[in-house]
């Protein structure tokens, strides 16, 4: 039942050396990090000088949202700071496998502030050999199922989580399907003989 394909022996494979250097962050996709002009975001990152803030706008719209990237050591801190700054509406927690970019896994938290009508996406990165992000279920009870999903599909562990078990896949599944070195598991199409005279 489990489909785990051994990683391809290619140059894409994340080497151990890559994962050590946490400061090697990938290039920012959008414009370079601007000092946050937005008051709510500014108050979130005030205590976190290493946070990288980018601003994005929605499709065909002037409304913007921000992404804030921090190191995993500041994860709980910035979540608490965001909550204190008014971002107390939990929306989403997700994970991404960047595979050849170290650190390999990205974990993101999507929060909304009702008062400021703002959205912020906090992100952090963790390496392949220690995919561990502190849990934030003490801040947002709703992160429970989302962290379980990230564990189930990516193998990222959340120390402190009350019940870190598989949620979407059967309990005895092997492997983490949404990782890039896990095959999609397509089977050859079977054409079964049958009569066509109905």
């Amino acid at each position, binding site marked *: 039942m489990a489909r785990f394909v051994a990683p391809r022996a290619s140059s894409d494979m994340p080497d151990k050396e890559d994962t050590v250097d946490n400061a090697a962050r990938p290039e920012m996709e959008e414009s370079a990090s601007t000092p946050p002009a937005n008051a709510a975001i500014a108050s979130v990152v005030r205590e976190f000088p290493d946070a990288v803030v980018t601003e994005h706008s929605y499709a*065909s719209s002037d409304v913007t949202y921000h992404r804030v990237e921090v190191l995993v050591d500041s994860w709980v801190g910035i979540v608490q700071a965001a909550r204190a700054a008014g971002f107390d509406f939990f929306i989403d927690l997700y994970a991404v496998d960047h595979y050849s970019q170290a650190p390999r896994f990205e974990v993101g938290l999507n929060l909304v502030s009702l008062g400021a009508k703002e959205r912020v996406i906090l992100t952090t990165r963790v390496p392949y050999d220690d995919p561990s992000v502190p849990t934030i279920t003490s801040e947002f009870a709703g992160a429970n199922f*989302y962290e379980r999903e990230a564990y189930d599909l990516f193998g990222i562990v959340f120390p402190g989580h009350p019940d870190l078990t598989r949620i979407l896949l059967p309990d005895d599944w092997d492997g983490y399907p949404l990782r890039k070195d896990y095959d999609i598991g397509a089977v050859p199409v079977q054409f079964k003989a049958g009569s066509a005279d109905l």
Partner: protein
Amino acid sequence: MSDATNVTDPAGEEAAAEPVQAASVADERRAAHDIWVSGTEERYPFAAETDEGAQEMLPEAEDPAADIQSGIAVDDDFLRESDVLADERQIINMGPQHPSTHGVLRLHLELEGETIRRAKPIIGYLHTGMEKTAEALNYAQGSTNVTRMDYLSPFHNELAFSLTVEQLLGIDVPERASAIRVLMTELNRVASHLVWVATQGMDIGALSMMIYGWREREVCLDFFEKTTGLRMNHNYIRPGGVAADLPHGWEDDVANLIDAVSGGLDEYEELLNENPIFLDRTMGVGVMTPDECKQYGITGPMARASGIDWDLRKTAPYCGIDQYDFDVPTGVHGDVHDRYTVRMEEMRQSLRIVEQVVAGMPSGDYRTEDRKVTPPPRARIDESMEALIHHFKLFTEGIQVPEGTAYQAVEGPRGEIGCLLVSKGGARPWRMHWRAPSFAAVQALPVMMTDSLLADVVATIASVDPVLGDVDR
């Protein structure tokens, strides 16, 4: 029997010792008359003491049991925690195959009598690996995948995906395309809420609501089939616009649809709004406070029923929906009844938006002219080399999307439907993550159900309106 007591104890001073007195008097009588007197049988040594006496009927004014039986007094002994041992709890498994769980949801319920003490939702029975499949499909095929997630609101899924791709591409779609998108998504909201009211009514016991809800929904599905070719899972809203223009005579179709659905809504309100059984079963049931909504990420009509005034159509408008006039209903109590009123009013407001779209539909293209995103019209391919090359590139390689990460959300019938796309260049997403509104709602089910009665579980689940395709993806 009163004679016996009165004779020996007229003043009632020894009323406490009455059983003993009666026994001795009765013994005397029996001994004297050799008559069997009830209450004097030898008791078995292990029989439990009762306070009812044997066949003894107290006058009604003094009988606490009669009060409980007739409902005047309530003996909530199942709520006295100290009296009940933890191992007297019964674990009941509801689902995954169950008529009332709205899909393959499994609920582990720990019951004490009829009260739920703990509930645990177990999901994953519909996990389809759609996020992994999205990495194998290109951006034009992506709509076919995401449309099957929240299968009651396929247009909203497609819209979230298309808007996110357009955010990455940095393109605008023509006004007509945006207006068509608004039309289809608002009609989809109506169709989805009709399924909700049908299943809510059926789960509460108003079985005919199932038939009525689907009667109006068929009118909506007819229009969808005429426009997109399919009743469900349309693959109509794609990056760059919509797949085809509206058919001839669509204004009349939509006008008839509005009449039919409004009439249907009037009927439902007449049937349900003052129905005492409906009110009893929905008021005060399945309450979520605003803080709980914010903690668990509950958005959409459920959050608005709790009083949170948050609607993405107002706070982060998309597709030009801010040019239309509409209200966003909110509730106060956060119970099943408030969710009912909020959703009924939302249907009416959606029809209001649809009327305005019909009145003000701009002319123009139904998809962008950018040939790197949408294929040229078929006739152009015979005339122009560039058109042929664009067509070829689009259908062999696909839309090339620059590197970036984008998130965009729309207001679906169940809440915020969001799509996060990570692109590393090329024709396929590196990662697509779907923010599913029902995932958060199912997680919050224990909050709504703990310490409520088993009969309320069904009403609560129906009011949450989960779509398991969204929960499990």
